[in-house]
């Protein structure tokens, strides 16, 4: 926990400074998670504010300290999920760019230019975004939480309120769908050249 439960209790009682303390403690981490879930830097703060807004109005439902963080994750996931559903059309329009993204990633990996690191980070980010945009929002969020955020199955159990085995099955299927989508893209005849980069 990044804050004492006492602070949460004060926030539950309507203490604004205590709520500010919670927001300041969890803001950066929450914004990072949102950034990786929605991949739209310009909307990250907006979704982040929505998360803390929901937190403010549901804080009185919290009973124990140990569920606070999974609960905040759940609010984050729900807000990201709502955002992704709302902006699905925009995301789909980017799917056609996947091959281009892959080309850019390969270029970044092979390149040795001055701004190599910055460009590479951007290109990896864009390539993964494009890859994840080919699966459902639910798959994208689950995979991001597990594989990118590094949450354990136990933590995911608390967030999703499902058994570990069910989560394993969902994760396996999500990975399969990502790999399949990725494989299908790669099997398409490339008109952009023959060179291949490897990771």
């Amino acid at each position: 926990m990044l804050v004492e439960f006492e602070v949460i209790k004060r926030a539950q009682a309507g203490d604004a400074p205590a709520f500010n303390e919670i927001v300041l403690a969890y803001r950066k981490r929450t914004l990072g998670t949102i950034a990786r879930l929605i991949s739209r830097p310009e909307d990250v703060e907006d979704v982040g504010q929505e998360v803390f807004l929901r937190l403010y109005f549901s804080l009185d439902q919290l009973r124990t300290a140990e569920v606070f963080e999974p609960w905040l994750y759940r609010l984050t996931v729900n807000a990201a999920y709502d955002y992704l559903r709302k902006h699905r059309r925009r995301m789909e329009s980017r799917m056609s760019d996947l091959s281009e993204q892959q080309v850019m990633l390969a270029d970044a990996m092979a390149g040795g230019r001055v701004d190599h690191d910055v460009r590479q980070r951007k290109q990896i980010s864009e390539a993964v975004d494009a890859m994840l945009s080919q699966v459902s929002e639910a798959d994208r969020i689950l995979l991001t939480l597990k594989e990118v955020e590094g949450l354990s199955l136990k933590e995911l159990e608390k967030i999703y309120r499902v058994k570990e085995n069910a989560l394993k099955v969902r994760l396996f299927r999500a990975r399969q769908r990502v790999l399949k989508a990725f494989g299908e893209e790669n099997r398409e005849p490339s008109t952009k050249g023959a060179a291949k980069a490897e990771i």
Partner: protein
Amino acid sequence: MNWTFKGDENEALDALFRAYREACPDPEASANFMPELWRRIDERQRSVFFMGRWARALVTAAAVLSMGMAAYLYIPRGHRSVFSVESYVEALSAGHSQDADLPEPALDEL
């Protein structure tokens, strides 16, 4: 140009996700984050407050209307109430006496 995963696809996917995590560090919030958050909280509180007032007003109006309807239905008007206090036999008897007052049909007109 294209790129592929080398070797085990799952390992490559893990590596790609790790690279993605490193490529996307946690962003810093802007200076406007907290003021904007509190503005949204206040806005939501106001709308919740007004919705609460509307809901209370509607509930009160519905309760008053229900009581008015109940009074209208239950209070006897004149000699008759909407609910009969007669027994079934009394009602039949009354109906029969009313029938007796009716003139006989003129059979020759049929």
